[in-house]
């Protein structure tokens, strides 16, 4: 022994203290919340330690795996998938899972994360590859559902519950995207052209319809007007006949000299009109003076008649 002035019993005591401390350090295990530690007795799994303070027997028990029992996110790297209509698309996904059985996930599978990643990737290929591009782009939900059930079932033996698998991005190549955009544009243009034609057709119909209505109305108006005109002429003729009749009746009953008075008045008015016309200094008058004189004579006769009465 080293010459430290310490007896062998003393050395033993010191070593024993050290060993004790080591044993306590090794035997007391504090498992944090959210983890499950597996205990191996001589290399064989015996139990899983839940969160909290635990004592394991040193020398024979060791901690095997420190398994994360929280829900975890697994990024699935982008990969190229060929759809059933031969379009090459790049997809990536995200997968949420939780270890429910620490023992199974530690010992049933060697590298859980790599295993899960590859499983999700191959399943994405299988599910997405069996679809056409259009379906792929519009049926995310059903893709996610199918993936989830498949992956969940496959990871059952590993003590893992897959809570969701989400396709993050489906991106077709650029030229395909352009073609899709063109198709969409053409579709819209077609619709616009159809709508235009439809509009023009309807407008033409409406115009023709209007013209027809107008013609009909006009014809009807003319007809009505003709009817009324005829009626008016009839009425006029009737009135003239009546007037003539009344005049002749008046003449036959009264003095015919009254006629002369009217005629004379008109004659004189006519003469006045002719005389007051501006552009005629010379008036050609095919007047029969005798007529005027006759009318004057008629007036004198009237006067006479009044004298006799007076």
């Amino acid at each position: 022994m080293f010459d430290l002035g310490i007896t062998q019993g003393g050395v033993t005591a010191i070593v024993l203290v050290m060993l004790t401390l080591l044993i306590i350090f090794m035997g007391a295990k504090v498992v944090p919340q959210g983890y499950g530690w597996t205990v191996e007795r001589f290399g064989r799994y015996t139990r899983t330690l839940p969160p909290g303070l635990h004592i394991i027997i040193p020398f024979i028990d060791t901690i095997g795996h420190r398994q994360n029992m929280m829900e975890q996110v697994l990024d699935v790297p982008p990969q190229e998938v060929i759809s059933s209509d031969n379009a090459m698309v790049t997809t990536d996904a995200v997968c949420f899972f939780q270890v429910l059985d620490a023992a199974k996930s530690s010992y049933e599978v060697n590298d859980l994360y790599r295993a899960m990643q590859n499983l999700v990737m191959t399943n994405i290929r299988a599910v997405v590859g069996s679809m056409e591009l259009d379906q792929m782009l519009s049926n995310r939900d059903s893709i996610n559902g199918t993936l989830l059930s498949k992956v969940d079932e496959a990871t059952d033996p590993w003590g893992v519950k897959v809570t969701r698998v989400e396709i993050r991005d489906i991106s077709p190549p650029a030229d395909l995207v352009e073609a899709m955009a063109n198709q969409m544009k053409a579709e819209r243009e077609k619709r616009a052209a159809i709508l235009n034609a439809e509009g023009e057709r309807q407008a033409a119909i409406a115009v023709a319809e209007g013209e027809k209505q107008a013609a009909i109305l006009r014809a009807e108006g003319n007809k009505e007007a003709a009817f009324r005109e005829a009626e008016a002429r009839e009425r006029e003729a009737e009135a003239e006949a009546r007037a003539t009749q009344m005049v002749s009746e008046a003449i036959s009953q009264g003095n015919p000299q009254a006629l002369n008075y009217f005629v004379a008045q008109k004659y004189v008015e006519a003469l006045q009109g002719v005389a007051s016309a501006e552009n005629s200094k010379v008036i050609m008058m095919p007047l029969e003076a005798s007529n005027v004189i006759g009318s004057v004579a008629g007036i004198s006769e009237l006067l006479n008649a009044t004298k006799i009465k007076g």
Partner: protein
Amino acid sequence: MSEFFTELSPWHWLILGMVLLGFEVLGSAGFLLGIALGALLQAVILFVVPDMAWHVQLLIFALASVIFTLLYWRVFRRFNDRSDQPLLNDRAAQLIGRQLVLAGPIENGLGKIQIGDTLWRAQADANIPAGSKIEIIDSQGMVLIVRQVD
């Protein structure tokens, strides 16, 4: 070296115990506590029996440390494991007691039930037709044990 051990006084043990307690407070969740208590016990014993051989002191300290650690773990296990949410991180156990309506039937004692947006494997000791009301009564790892509710 030997002088240090031969001149061990109760104060040394007391200081050691308090230093260890300080480390325990800083966070080692219990495994330094037993050692600290061992040191404090040794201090008390040395007050009572002043002329004790130093290797015996060390022996007593080592034994006391182990015993106190075991005692602490035994006696305070319930206290240590007390939690506001004992079912944290245990998905299947959190579902126990929940009642739901079966979407698909349980045949040959096995079936699938949908909870939230995930499917769970369900086990029952009888066939249950679809559309009937069930209750989750237990969980075994990944499998939920269900029974029909009338």
